[in-house]
């Protein structure tokens, strides 16, 4: 390896599993580590500038999950932390059946996406919203505003956003504990 590249070990939890220590050049984005070291390509490179949010993952903290942009956040910032990527939301039963998360199920049933490139970011953003609402429910008449606030940072070029928004709104309204009268 080149002398011009400083290497430092990285250890974190990804989708509940310990990862590392792996030697990663300092300054590498988490997105590149997910793609090139871990083979997890579900978090997508869109802009590389933190504008489109196709690359986001859930960062699990004591106060609840946060949405993090992995294209502009260095991998070593996540040292010792725990993240969930889009690959970690569904689970597979022993018989091979895939059990989607409620957000994923809502997107699928609402035909929410087309090309699907931005979908992982929307899954992440909506999942963070759902978990946030579990802690801090909102009035039912605020749901549409809250959904737009949560998803507006995400760029989608195929769908016009409508079905993503409707899917999350309907899920929030149908899930006990996320709203108050």
């Amino acid at each position, binding site marked *: *390896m*080149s*002398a*011009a*590249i400083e290497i430092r070990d990285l250890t974190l939890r990804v989708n509940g599993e310990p990862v590392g220590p792996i030697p990663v*050049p300092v*300054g*590498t984005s988490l997105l*590149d580590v997910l*793609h*090139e070291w871990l*083979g997890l*390509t*579900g*978090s*997508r*490179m*869109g*802009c*590389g*500038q933190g*504008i*489109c949010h*196709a690359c986001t993952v859930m960062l699990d903290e004591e106060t609840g999950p946060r949405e993090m942009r992995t294209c502009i956040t260095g991998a070593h910032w996540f040292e010792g932390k725990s993240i969930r*990527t*889009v*690959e970690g*939301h*569904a689970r597979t039963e022993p018989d091979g*059946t*895939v*059990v*989607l998360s409620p957000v*994923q*199920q809502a*997107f*699928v*049933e609402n*035909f929410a*996406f*087309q*090309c*699907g*490139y931005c979908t992982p970011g929307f*899954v992440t953003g909506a999942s963070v919203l759902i978990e946030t609402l579990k802690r801090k429910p909102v009035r039912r008449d605020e749901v*549409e505003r809250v959904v*737009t606030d949560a*998803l*507006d940072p*995400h*760029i*989608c*070029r*195929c*769908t*016009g*956003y*409508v*079905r993503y*928004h409707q899917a999350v709104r309907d899920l929030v309204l149908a899930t006990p504990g996320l709203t108050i009268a």
Partner: protein
Amino acid sequence: MAIQHDAADPTRALSRRSFLKAGTAAGIAVKVSVLAPPAQARLMEASPSDGPAWAAPGRPRYRLDAVAKVTGSKTFSRDYRAKDLPGWPDRQAHALLIAATCADRRFTGLDLSRLPASLQPDRIVRHEDLVADGVAVPHADFFGDWFLVPQGETPRLLGQPVAILIFYDFPRFAAAKRALRFADDVVRFGEATGAKPPAHYGASRWVRIEGETPDAPDRFSPYEHSPIFAGFSGDKPAWPAPGQEGAFPKGMAAAAAIAAEIDGAGEDALVMRRTYRSQSTDASAMEADNGNVWYDPATGILHLMMATQSPYDVAEAAAGLVAKSRFPLKEVDLKVGYTVGYGTKDHHIFPFLCVVAALYADGRPVRLANDRFEQFQNGLKRHAFHMDTALLVDRASGRFRAMTGRYACDGGGRPNYSVAVSFVGATAAQSIYYLPKSDFQAIALASRAVEAGSTRGFGTLQTMSATEMLVDEAAALLRIDAIELRLRNVMRTGQRNSQGAVPAGALRNEEILHKAAAHPLWRERVARKVAYEAAHPGRRYGVGFAQVHKDYGTGAEAAVASLELDAQGRLRLRHVAHEMGPGVTTSQAAMVGEILGRVPSETEFGVVRWPEMPLHTTDQPYTTPQAEEDRRAQDPRWTPRFTSPMSATNSAYYLGHATRTAARFLADHAIWPAARSLWARGGKGGALASYNEITRDGLRLADGEVRGGGLPALSLAEVAAEAHRLGLAVGVTLHTFNRWQWAEAEFDLPGTGRTRLPIDALSLRYGAGAAPERRALMDTAGWHFLPRTAAFYPPTQRNNVGTTYYSPMATLAEVAVDTASGEVTILSHHSILECGRQIVPALVSGQVQGGLAMGIGHALKEVLPLYEDGPGDGTWNWNRYELPRARDVAPWNQTVEILPPLSETDPPKGIAEVVMIAVVPALANAVAHAIGHRFHDLPIRPERIREALA
């Protein structure tokens, strides 16, 4: 700049999205396949945990690719690294392009001194290497003459690569890329030369003057006579002189007569002359261009994993590229994943740059994947248009007497599809109106801009938006309601378009106009404006309307589909179509369900190996003369084109035609005779004998059952078993071709006799009970290829019609303009679409919503400078190129009405492009209503509104 070149080859310009295929070197096998997803992603054909994917045949509960996409499985071409690809080496090399950001000075060399020795590339590829090794751009008349700028030459276009750097590992690649990004001293330039773009690309002119009666021949029209083609004198087309001999002079005389009528119009007519400009934009497909290529010199196999909308053409052209070089080649093996491009991945030089990188990677797989800055720098752009229009309107009747337009598009520095875009735009300029006289010039200019190419709308977004702004302004000047003026001029079924052709089917624009006129947004707009502005000081309220109809298809649409019914009643569908996002895999399966009452239990898309369909093609569908086509058509294994790219909104109607025809064939030739056989059981004609009034039309296939005519319901399984027992045709593979009309052919079907079908080639597979002599016919990969006994290809003259297939859409947009900031807020919008019979309504409405968002971006936000400050400089990204976000598109306040089909037998229409267009002029017209100022240039950004209000 004075560029002179010979008159364009007239036939070349006629090809809408034509592409001249490589004469692939003999003996090279070309394989193309959609990559089978890894086990984790194979769920795309399975269902999630809570039930089946299909609520009913024809009614999917999910997209068939939904689970793979929502779980982040590897689905896009971009997701794959060498280690994910079976048989490839594990180690992945990476490449990057060094691009010229200056196109008016000589390129003198590369300076990589910013990189320490340890970060120097493992291989640098320059133009001179390619020359030495015989590596040349395939189809230079389409993709441009250079891959890389030669030392000492001026780049053809901004952003043109000068070198490819290859690194054998990712960390060094990433570090070097960071060190070189935005550096202005890496590419060295010398003497100023001025810009050196290619010669201008082409000019055509579409002139029509109607005949004495609606049925009489046009006095002049492209269809009746010819479009007019010209070369250039300087930057202007050198049109032929008017005259009375020959199609071009006659056409120019007709154009002169129209111009004279407009120039000499009296007080009884309104003459409007307006100039409109539509900006260059980047489609900003979320997946940037990328490819991963492994050239294995040991085997001579070129392996490609490529993001492309035209895989077959990429594979063939790549084969031609390598075969002509010093690098040995035995086979090309191209794989594609899912991708998305909105047209911009349909024929681009990028995949071939990936191939070039691989040739110099010493047998390593090389990945060339644009980041967003690079995508702006080298991705295909939407053409900027400059449009000079004139409209002549009879004041008393409000009827249009004539319209002319000069539509010049900037194609940038590589030819690509610019000629086609120019004339597709020009021939769409009439929008939804009947024009007794029209003269539309299509001019494709070359420049040093980043190249423009196929992009959703294909020139029509620009031209129809201009017309819809023009007509709206005309209505205001004539003091006629803007929808009423449209109603007086709308093209009705049977009337001819500006090429002189009668569009397909029923034109329902009038019905849509009436619905829009009755909508509260339109009816109450005056009162609502007063009320809104009273309640919102500093904000101005406006409602705008526009309606367009957009062609779909290319005039040379070809497809292959196969459908097989097994003895248990299960169906297997195979198709050339592959998924681009709109849901083609779901919708094709749904079509089978609608016709046969059961969806396929097995599907395979992106199939390009069809051993049972042993056709050959000259693939010159636009340019083959009639006599030659007649001669070739005698060969039952010849077809004008084998398959089409996934583009031009071709999946629902054109690719679906193959699916629907295959399903109907099985219904006619397997299910119907087998059901009759079962109903005749019991001897002496059985139950059918006394109840024999049922005809094929009375057959009903639904929910896995076969019914009709008062006869007992049969399960599809028992009918299928009977069809197999009887040795009927239980499998059908067919090939289709459309030149604004379906090719038809006659086949001598065993047991049925001579049958005419809307296809040009057919293979059958017979059930196990077939007689030995019939089974012996299945000698073509297990199928019976039936040579057609007669072929009926649409006449080659139909190449002149431009289009005959249209889908209409109207949009009403309600906006508020902040007079302080100039911001336009969309309060709501309502659209009305006619798309024939919807296949999957959820997919249709998703397309509409997405198209509207893209149109909103074009109308209000997105803009790229063409030249030095534009995307070729490598500094553009979505921080400064503003895309519409959810808040910008009124996600909670938009509605869509889709007209019900006229009958249940209406075919589906292609809508993917039309849905983004009407909203563009509707917003411009809404802003005009709001602030009283008509913008003629797009986009209408806040700073321009502030200027207008100042």
